[in-house]
């Protein structure tokens, strides 16, 4: 099984600062591994950290303590903290934080999905049946999400024995029509709309251009119906 990229885009939270986007996405060349990450606003350099996490996942999707150590090392190689101002040093020591959502098609036809934090995967099995990971309800977005940090001491949960069972779901022999991956503001809007009987998921599934996505996001933000944050959406078809 492999995924076919039908659409992907990242929109900035603030059009005045398009280079400040702190979401990242990465897709392996063979289309079997895809990752998105949402960098936290209150972070020293969550833009770089989100990119390192997605690139690292696509290079090696087996996330564990050692994997994270290597990612942190790559982050540390970006700069020499002794060259930073006092405020940058303080912010650097506080760390950078980001979510990670990784999707992987295995050679035996199974699909696994890792989620740390509040990015969302929606698996459309049939026209009448879909599931999502790791949240199912809009209210779950009100909880403080778990984040991967550049401060190793804050990542102990990754080394715990229940990490895989808490953060990875498997789709085994289930039909799969397509997959949506999205960051939290869009995901919260999507689940809330569905709960209110509005077919948001099918609307997102149909998006094929950045303009369509931007139009939807602008409209919902203007109605204060969607939190203002970076927005990432990936639409994936499923093939063999």
């Amino acid at each position: 099984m492999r995924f076919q990229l039908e659409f992907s885009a990242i929109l900035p939270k603030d059009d005045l600062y398009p280079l400040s986007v702190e979401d990242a996405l990465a897709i392996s060349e063979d289309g079997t591994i895809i990752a998105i990450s949402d960098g936290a606003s209150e972070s020293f350099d969550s833009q770089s950290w989100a990119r390192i996490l997605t690139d690292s996942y696509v290079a090696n999707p087996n996330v564990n303590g050692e994997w994270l150590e290597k990612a942190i090392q790559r982050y540390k190689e970006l700069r020499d903290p002794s060259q930073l101002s006092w405020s940058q040093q303080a912010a650097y020591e506080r760390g950078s934080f980001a979510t990670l959502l990784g999707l992987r098609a295995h050679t035996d036809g199974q699909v696994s999905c890792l989620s740390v934090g509040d990015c969302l995967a929606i698996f459309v099995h049939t026209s009448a049946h879909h599931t999502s990971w790791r949240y199912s309800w809009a209210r779950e977005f009100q909880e403080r999400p778990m984040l991967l940090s550049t401060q190793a001491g804050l990542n102990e949960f990754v080394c715990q024995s229940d990490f895989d069972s808490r953060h990875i779901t498997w789709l085994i022999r289930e039909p799969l029509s397509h997959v949506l991956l999205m960051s939290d503001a869009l995901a919260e809007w999507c689940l809330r709309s569905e709960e209110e009987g509005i077919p948001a998921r099918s609307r997102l599934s149909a998006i094929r251009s950045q303009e369509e996505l931007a139009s939807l996001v602008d409209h919902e933000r203007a109605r204060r119906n969607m939190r203002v944050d970076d927005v990432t959406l990936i639409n994936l078809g499923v093939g063999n």
Partner: protein
Amino acid sequence: MPYTAEISRSSPTAFLFLVDQSGSMSDKFSGTEKSKAEQVSDVINRTLMTLITRCTKSEGTRNYFDIGVIGYGNDQAMNGFHGALSASVFNPISEVEANPLRVEDREKKMDDGAGGIITNTVKFPVWFEPKANGGTPMCAALTQAAEALVAWCDTHPDSYPPTIMHITDGESTDGDPEELANQLRQIRTNDGEVLLFNCHISSLNANAIQFPAGEAGLPDSYAKLLFRMSSRLPDHIIKYAQGKGIAVGMEARGFTFNAEAVELVEFLDIGTRASQLR
């Protein structure tokens, strides 16, 4: 819904610190060797540093907040900032970052990760100096704050409203501040009224009371007055305080009585937790 505006560089919020610098602030701060004035200025400098750290990214400090400090004592209220920051009450946080009076090296004890304690030197910027002199012109300070806040809200109509953190140990010597505080809390943006938090560092030998919901348990009329002057806490601040393990009810107000050093830090941390930055 009030207090939900997202805070961004295009739509910042403001924090204004009102600090009692009257003569009684030279008394010892409970549980420390420092005077109240020294302890309060340390905590304010540390809070400013924390706010700056929250706004600082690899490319620099983003202007999510405007910051002001008004000190009052010796029969006048005055800008608590000096030098380049003293021209106006509010300054963008990047300007505050760029203009400390000095940056001190201070020792900090830290866990060495192997069961021991090591001492590291950390940078401690100072913007606000301790002072303790004369009477307590609280009404003058509230009036000066109101003037600055009206102007700020006029130019930021859709922003998360400003938060005032007021720290005092004594009774106003230039009139009854309650009505002025009521008027101050009516200044607003489209996202809600100005939030007024009061911290009473009393000299009474009494237990600290954090974020009470009523004045019945407060020990004296002055604590009760400051309680009435304080805003009700918005939901997200209640949630944040509860997340820190503090028992805060839905009717709680932004008031702390007889805070010790740790509680004073906590009070300023909770009070400056405006909604999400973006």
